[in-house]
């Protein structure tokens, strides 16, 4: 009897780590676009990159409850690191990704101690401030970054020495998608681990997390550093696949956009960033084709409507559908907290 109970406990705990059918379908469809949508690879590449960027924000916002309006600092640093590296002859893309990740992680680690203090408002201001400072540094250091003209003269070598980048963006998209997928698997693994569980507990109630013996600050530093590295990789992917870096990678709208993307897709279940990136880019693409001058007006309006009127219900509907597809047994009609993040 007691071994039955132990089995029940084990399977219930391990259940979170299982892949649902919906998830497998999601990635199969993503991979199939490599063949089925050859003329859309440039925008799909952008979607994969923004998706990874939003995934990195989800790691800190959705799993640790840290709000940030300056996540572009890490994205931009990663982009410049990879771009400058390639410009000065280190053309191997994977090397660039690793260096970019390390650079962003160092910045993340250093600034995490500022972000740990204070309220949500303080966090927003501190993260925003860090990104602004970095943007101005990049602007001033034009000898290194190209300043307002952008970093030009990047030429990337073939990936793994085999796959050259092409003008249709097919290699680029395959590359970004593969990197995003691998980092997604890692993130997914992390959030169902005991470490990930402790992050969720900190998000829910830091006071109690401490009373359970969790070194709260250390865990937050760890996840903030990790998320920074992820954002750095996303930035590096953009630099490498477009072979250009401008000050735009550090701009405020990058940080704001990625927050919007995550909010559209839903916080705290890792797919939110990816789904949000698809919705955001497709909306942007469709509207700007329809009305090139006023697309920002429409996208702003749509975002306000989504967030005010339907986001909770929208994501909940998707989630219910998702759970149905994945055949999960978790209850779906739970009341959801209006402000805090949720988990799957």
């Amino acid at each position, binding site marked *: 009897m*007691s071994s039955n*109970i*132990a089995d*029940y*406990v*084990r399977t*219930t*705990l*391990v259940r*979170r*780590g299982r892949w649902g059918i919906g998830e497998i379908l999601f990635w199969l469809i993503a991979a199939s676009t490599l063949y089925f949508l050859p003329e859309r690879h440039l925008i799909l590449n952008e979607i994969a990159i923004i998706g990874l960027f939003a995934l990195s924000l989800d790691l800190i916002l959705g799993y640790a409850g840290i709000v940030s309006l300056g996540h572009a600092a890490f994205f931009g640093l990663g982009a410049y690191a990879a771009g400058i590296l390639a410009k000065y002859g280190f053309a191997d893309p994977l090397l660039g990704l690793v260096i970019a990740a390390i650079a962003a992680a160092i910045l993340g680690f250093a600034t995490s101690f500022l972000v740990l203090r204070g309220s949500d408002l303080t966090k927003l201001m501190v993260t925003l401030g860090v990104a602004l400072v970095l943007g101005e540094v990049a602007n001033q250091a034009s000898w290194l970054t190209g300043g307002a003209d952008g970093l030009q003269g990047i030429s990337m070598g073939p990936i793994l020495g085999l796959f050259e980048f092409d003008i249709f963006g097919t290699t680029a998209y395959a590359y970004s998608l593969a990197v995003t997928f691998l980092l997604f698997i890692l993130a997914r*693994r*992390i959030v*169902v*681990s*005991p*470490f*990930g*569980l*402790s992050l*969720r*507990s900190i998000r*829910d*109630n830091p*006071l*109690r*997390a*401490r*009373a*359970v*013996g*969790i*070194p*709260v600050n250390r*865990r937050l530093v760890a996840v903030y550093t990790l998320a920074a590295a992820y954002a750095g990789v996303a930035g590096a992917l953009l630099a490498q696949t477009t072979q250009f870096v401008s000050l735009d990678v550090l701009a405020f709208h990058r940080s704001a956009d990625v927050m919007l993307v995550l909010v559209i897709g839903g916080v705290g279940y890792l797919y939110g960033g990816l789904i949000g990136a698809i919705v955001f880019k497709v909306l942007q693409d469709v509207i700007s084709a329809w009305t090139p001058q006023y697309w920002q007006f429409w996208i702003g309006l749509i975002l306000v409507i989504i967030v005010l009127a339907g986001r909770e219900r929208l994501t909940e509907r998707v989630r219910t559908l998702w759970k149905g597809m994945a055949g999960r047994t978790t*209850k779906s009609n*739970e*009341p959801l*907290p209006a402000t*805090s993040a*949720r*988990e799957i």
Partner: protein
Amino acid sequence: MAIALETKGLVKRFGGLQATDNVSFKLEQGARHALIGPNGAGKTTFINLLTGVLKPTSGQIFLEGQEITGLRSELRVQRGLARTFQINQLFPAMTPLETIGLAVSERLGGGRDWWRVTGRKHEIVDEIVEVAQRFRLMDVLDERTSNLAYGKQRLLEIAVAFACRPRVLLLDEPAAGVPEAERHELLATVAALPRDVSVLLIEHDMDLVFSFADRISVLVNGALFTEGTVEEVSTDPRVRAVYLGESVDE
């Protein structure tokens, strides 16, 4: 008898207010000790000093003979000093299973494990089962904590602290707000706590204090007023005066 938890000359001042006034207190190994006192006597401040939420102005705290005065609160938990909260401090979006699992895996050093899926380790699973059965949470293990009945949440509150395998357990009004129907279950689990855990109970409810504790300390205006067996304290006219005076004022 060995001393589980001891304070020497503990003082906490908030500006001009002396919230804890030179408290020298001993909790014996395996004790069932109650700390009572009128509202505003400084019971919560005292708990916060013990657990490291607040730093004392002066004085020392010892856990099983080792000084912990300057230790961060999570390290005190790891040394075996756990607490429950007067107002539930749970993880609303997590299940009791995950909550207990978290406490167990943290104690076994699993919190740094970012690769294995939670629940892959046998010793963690076995302990979760043991704690869940002890606190009668088996039937709600996979429910969302925010959806649990209040009595169950109260049980979980104690279960999480117990899952930290404390040598000393501080119970802060464990039965507060629990409806009469669920009260019995809660008191039974508190009474059944193993004797190798020393318990300090902070309580208003005299029935619970008299049925549970074998020693009582009375805190008044931040200072230890008196201490003794249940018999001594309950018949002490000065305690009655302090208490009755307070209740009449309320």
